[in-house]
């Protein structure tokens, strides 16, 4: 990919220079045309004025070629200094239609102007000529009908035989000088302007792209350890604010993801450190003892080791289950199930614990509720929800379980007495390893149960929500679609044939 700066500079420069050249050419042509027109117009006006001084009188005598005509040149008696010999003299010459020279200016002396090409009567024609003094000149050629002096001619009107041809010429020095000045000016500015334009364009592009460079520099300085950094969108030009805003959103999500990953890694390490420390100190303690251990001590030690191993195994298995669920690798077998049976089965192992702790349980379940789901995965969802409710309901508290039919779903509602959670806590309950008790005192609970509930719910395509109700009720709602006539439920993960 080419450089944006280079791209802009080249295109702006090329465009500007093209515009300049186009303008210059246009201006040149317009100016030159205008100069020419003014020059020609002035010359033509002079020639037309001249023709007003020419009269034709016919004396009636017949010539071989017709009626004798006398041309009366009134200007002959006038002092016309411009036609006198001088370096800046003008020239004129007058012909009949047939090419006979009638008159010419004193400035011509013995020389003649070149006979003009035929022209249209009344329309001046301009030609460049070589003047008798060798200079370049411009001549106006007029074919005109002079004034008629005698009554007969006036009565008859002009005839073609009366037409005369006048050529009036002057040097075109002023025109050429003007052209030279024009060309010099264009050449001068033509050299300076591209340089100036290039400099201006370069600077303008550089300044214009400064925000891009700045944002690139800011982005470049953001690393894994500085994801809290944000780009100041308000300092950006209007066009770049959406980019900065989106980048900040992305950084926010990245920061959250990294924090979550760091937290997860740290939590996993933390959960493993204590059982490993227990194993280690037990082993080292026994190895330090010189005497053979008593059988009772050995059995007790092995019970401890088994407990530690079980705890670690439970942690690792849950982590694996989470990882499989999140990656979509858990197989899903969708079959028609009775939701009431699933709930009852998942609840059964917890009945003894609630009885022992004097926890009241209220249930409102229909006789049956057909749903399409994966029995194992949904069973795990229910098992974890129930385990969580039983573990965190204080002795003497209450657990309420209802199953109701909403419009398009069956809703499982599980509420338990809970006095230690806040509204802010609720937003975290599905996060891995999150526990209200930061000390993580209970080794049986590592804070992954509700994460697994959420993960499996996502896999199954069912909605699970939690909230606090009142001052002491933690409520989890699970909405699951009823059984379809044909199993059309979709879920993430690999779908195996039922």
């Amino acid at each position, binding site marked *: 990919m080419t450089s944006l700066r280079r791209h802009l500079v080249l295109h702006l420069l090329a465009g500007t220079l093209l515009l300049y050249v186009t303008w210059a050419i246009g201006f040149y042509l317009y100016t030159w045309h205008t100069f020419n027109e003014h020059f020609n117009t002035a010359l033509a006006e002079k020639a037309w004025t001249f023709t007003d001084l020419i009269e034709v009188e016919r004396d009636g005598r017949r010539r071989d070629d017709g009626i004798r005509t006398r041309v009366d040149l009134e200007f002959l008696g006038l002092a016309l200094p411009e036609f006198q010999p001088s370096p800046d003299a003008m020239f004129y010459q007058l012909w009949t239609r047939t090419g006979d020279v009638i008159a010419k200016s004193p400035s011509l002396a013995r020389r003649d102007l070149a006979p003009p090409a035929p022209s249209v009567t009344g329309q001046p024609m301009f030609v460049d000529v070589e003047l008798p003094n060798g200079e370049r000149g411009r001549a106006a050629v007029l074919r005109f009908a002079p004034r008629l002096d005698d009554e007969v001619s006036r009565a008859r009107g002009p005839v073609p035989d009366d037409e005369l041809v006048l050529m009036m010429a002057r040097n075109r020095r002023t025109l050429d000088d003007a052209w030279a000045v024009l060309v010099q000016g264009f050449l001068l500015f033509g050299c300076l302007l591209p340089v100036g334009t290039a400099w201006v364009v370069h600077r303008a592009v550089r300044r214009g792209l400064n925000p891009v460079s700045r944002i690139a520099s800011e982005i470049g300085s953001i690393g894994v350890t500085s994801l809290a950094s944000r780009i100041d969108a308000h300092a950006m030009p209007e066009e770049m604010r959406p980019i900065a805003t989106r980048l900040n959103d992305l950084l926010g999500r990245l920061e959250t993801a990294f924090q979550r990953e760091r937290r997860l890694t740290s939590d996993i*390490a*933390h959960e493993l*450190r*204590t059982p*490993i*420390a*227990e*194993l*280690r*100190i*037990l082993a*080292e*303690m026994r190895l*330090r*003892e010189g005497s053979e251990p008593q059988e009772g001590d050995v059995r007790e030690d092995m019970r*401890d080791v088994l*407990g*530690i191993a079980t705890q670690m195994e439970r942690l690792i298995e849950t982590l694996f289950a989470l990882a499989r669920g999140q990656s979509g690798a858990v197989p899903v077998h969708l079959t028609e199930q009775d939701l009431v049976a699933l709930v009852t089965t998942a609840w059964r192992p917890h009945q003894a614990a609630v009885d022992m702790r004097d926890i009241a349980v209220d249930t409102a379940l229909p006789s049956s509720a057909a749903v399409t789901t994966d029995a194992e995965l949904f069973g795990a969802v229910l098992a974890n929800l129930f385990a969580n409710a039983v573990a965190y309901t204080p002795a003497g508290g209450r657990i309420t379980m209802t199953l109701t039919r909403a419009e398009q779903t069956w809703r499982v509602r599980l509420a338990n007495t809970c006095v230690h959670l806040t509204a802010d806590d609720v937003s975290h309950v599905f996060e891995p390893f999150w526990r209200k*008790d*930061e*000390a*993580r*005192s209970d*080794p049986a609970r590592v804070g992954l149960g509700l994460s697994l509930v959420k993960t499996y719910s996502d896999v199954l395509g069912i909605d699970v929500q939690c909230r606090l109700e009142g001052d002491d009720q933690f409520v989890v709602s699970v909405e699951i679609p009823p059984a379809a006539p044909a199993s059309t439920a979709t879920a993430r993960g690999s779908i195996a044939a039922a």
Partner: protein
Amino acid sequence: MRVLVVEDSSRLRKFLCQALRRVGYAIDSAADGEEALALTGSVDYDAIVLDVMLPKIDGLSVLDRLRQDGCQARVLILTAKHTVEDRVTGLQRGADDYLVKPFALDELLARLQALVRRRYDCLAPVVTVADVSIDTARRSVTKNGLAIALRPREYALLEYLALRKGALVSRAELENHIYDDPDELVSNALDAAVSRLRRKIDSPDAPSLVQTRRGMGYILDEDVT
């Protein structure tokens, strides 16, 4: 030496207490911060092994309260929080040492021993009284270069007196720092322990290194007054 072990993991707490008792420490234990503060309010501990992530009151808050109350016990933080930031925080809040789980038992014992020595301003690990050398790092005793076998309780008694060498140590203080539960002792248990110790470290023709101050306590010193 009397040590308080504050750890919410019941298994780890049990193992720590066992391991420390086996090397002669008198041990109390607590499972949460509240219990720890209640115990430190009434007992003068030589050292406290303190977990950070405790229920009710966390370990660093317990540490803050201990220092505010002027507790002189040396505190060794034992925790799974392993980052430099965590260690720096713990030490800045008043801990004397920091050990990350999992740890080597030998290291825990060595660090604890070093803390206890500092508690009594004893910088060198070896204390010599006449021809008896007590190596507090190795927990070994020699007399004229020959090793003397002492039971854990006997060693604990000798070590406590050695760290307070030349100073009068009351009976109550000795009982509190040597025995897990001083209230359960038979009345002459300490005298019997001192007697056994004297038999092992004293020279036959020389005055006992463990001098009795009747009604007051004992002094370990080579100078007899």
